């Protein structure tokens, strides 16, 4: 069992040992090992990208009662390869009035920063690109760089639709970064560390901790993180940045060939990154019984991605005003209230005797703590949803009334004209 569980780590260690044997301990060996690790991380990310394009097309097709790709290979499994070949052989065009270097660099930056997310993700115990002590913060920071790339693409193409798409993107991405960060902070607070390995170990109960995933302790944060994560990657129902029925294709309307492919790849990897982050931060990452750890991470990530596909297949696109209202008037205040609540609960109900001695509070069992946290988070969520539902219904009724009045007025005019 241990052999299977440690398979990835052992392979990695074996390769590293072989290279050190070949080149000797030193700089050259370090560089080769780092290069191999970088290629491995990129291979995982782009392999996930290829598999997910196929899965998404099939599953969304099933949701919409279509068949999906079924020509290339059995059940169309070779479709990603066919797509890649098509993108590589297409003509690579540049608009005559484009801002040349800005236009050329934008897709590369999108793809690079999307891949950089995966360097801190722990795939299994001991299998992590680099265990940064600021991992969770790093991911948010890297994610913010893609905004610039999209702005570059939109401006560089010198096209009205591109620029409109880029502006929408910036309003959306900059806004949703705030609730995303605000909902990672509770996780960091309860872990006491920003390292993703520490966060996972806290959830699997390796070095103390509750041994339950954070989604049980903070369902509200998990939900808010997931929704703002979807908005952050610009996927449907938040795909205003490339709304094909409104602004053609948004910021990448002028891109063709492999540059378009890079942008698509960057977007998919961002979505995959959000799914991985969600499973690491809230679902316990590689932790889980029976199955080997890396398989658990893959399963959890795919489960989260399934939710993303499901939302994409079923929900209509939101309007820009709804999107921004939801962010600034709902998610941000709610996240702040949630943060304050968890702060107070964490001070009042203590399970660690040492902390109790130092700060006081009420000493309770860890499982009671989990129940208190989870119940209050859930209660806050239900309360917030109730308030918002009432408010939105009122707004919608008022809107419908205005529409009705207008319709009646129009009918009267029409009748008078006849």
């Amino acid at each position, binding site marked *: 069992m241990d052999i299977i569980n440690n398979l990835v780590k052992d392979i990695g260690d074996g390769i590293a040992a072989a290279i050190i044997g070949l080149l000797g301990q030193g700089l050259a060996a370090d560089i080769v090992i780092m290069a191999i690790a970088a290629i491995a991380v990129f291979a995982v990310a782009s392999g996930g990208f290829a598999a997910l394009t196929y899965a998404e097309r099939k599953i969304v097709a099933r949701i919409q009662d279509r068949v999906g790709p079924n020509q290339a290979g059995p059940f169309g499994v070779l479709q990603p390869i066919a797509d890649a070949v098509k993108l590589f052989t297409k003509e690579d065009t540049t608009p005559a009035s484009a801002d040349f270097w800005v236009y050329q660099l934008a897709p590369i930056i999108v793809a690079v920063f999307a891949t950089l997310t995966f360097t801190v993700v722990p795939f299994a115990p001991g299998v992590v690109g680099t265990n940064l002590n*600021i991992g969770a913060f*790093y991911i948010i920071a890297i994610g*913010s*760089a893609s905004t*610039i790339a999209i702005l570059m693409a939109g401006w560089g193409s010198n096209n009205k639709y591109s620029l409109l798409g880029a502006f929408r993107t910036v309003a959306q991405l*900059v806004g949703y970064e705030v609730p995303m960060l605000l909902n990672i902070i509770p996780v960091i607070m309860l872990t*006491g560390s920003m390292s993703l390995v520490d966060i996972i170990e806290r959830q699997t109960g390796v070095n103390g901790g509750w041994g339950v995933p954070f989604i049980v302790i903070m369902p509200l944060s998990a939900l808010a993180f997931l929704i703002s994560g979807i908005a952050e990657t610009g996927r449907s129902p938040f795909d205003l940045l490339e709304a094909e029925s409104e602004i053609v294709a948004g910021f990448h309307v002028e891109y063709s060939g492999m540059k378009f492919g890079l942008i698509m790849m960057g977007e998919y990897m961002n979505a995959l990154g959000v799914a991985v982050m969600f499973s690491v931060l809230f679902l316990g990452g590689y932790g889980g019984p029976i199955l080997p750890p890396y398989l658990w991470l893959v399963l959890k990530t795919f489960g989260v991605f399934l939710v993303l596909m499901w939302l994409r297949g079923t929900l209509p696109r939101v309007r820009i005003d709804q999107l921004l209202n939801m962010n600034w008037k709902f998610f941000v205040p709610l996240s702040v209230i949630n943060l304050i609540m968890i702060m107070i609960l964490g001070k009042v109900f203590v399970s660690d005797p040492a902390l109790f001695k130092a700060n006081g509070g009420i000493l309770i069992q860890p499982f009671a703590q989990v129940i208190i946290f989870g119940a209050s988070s859930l209660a806050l969520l239900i309360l917030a949803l109730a308030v918002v539902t009432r408010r939105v219904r009122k707004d919608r009724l008022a809107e419908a009334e205005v529409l009705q009045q207008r319709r009646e007025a129009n009918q009267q005019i029409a009748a008078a004209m006849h």
Partner: protein
Amino acid sequence: MTVAQIVFILLSVVGLGAALLVVTTRNLFHAALYLIASFFAVSGFYILLEAGFFAAAQFLVYIGAISILFIFATMLTRTVRGMVPRNSQWQAALFVSVILFVAMLLIFSPANFSLPFGQGRTFGGAEWQFAEVPNKPGVLRDVPASSINDFGRALVDLNQYGIALLLSGLLLLIGMVGAIWVARERKPREILAERARMAAEEAEERAKAAAKAPEVSVAHAAVAHDAHHH
């Protein structure tokens, strides 16, 4: 040459080159992009200095927020292209900058780079002591592993930086409210009304001044009075 030195030189070439382009290019959008490249290099310096938190914060604050603000302001003011790269006092500005740089170079560089004035490395009675900070293993202390935790505790500790952190939160809040208020959209009618009010006030002041000093021509006061009424 160690790897760190090579990385340092690459970063300084990128950072300073981009900074030079920021202050010389005509296209303001390009200037903003060069500014981002410069920020990027600075974040690389932070990584070299083992301040990873600040490298990430540099990304989040400067690249993710401030430079986007710059690009937005550029586009909102329609001044992207065709900026005159230098104003009339540019020679003076260049002179001041170069002199300042040479002065700092002389102060910061190591002792064997001897100063053309003064004795040794004494400035106004105080000795410049940081140029020769030793950089050998064992002498240069390591950053403790709990550095980031200590930093966090110091920020919330009221005896250390707690008050300053609260005040800076207040500063950010005031800055945000102020920015929204200053840049709020106003209807042309409001602006015209405000201008008319200001003109009226000015005319009133003139009228008062004319009343106080009768030797000023009466016609002027009458005109001002007229303007006040219309």
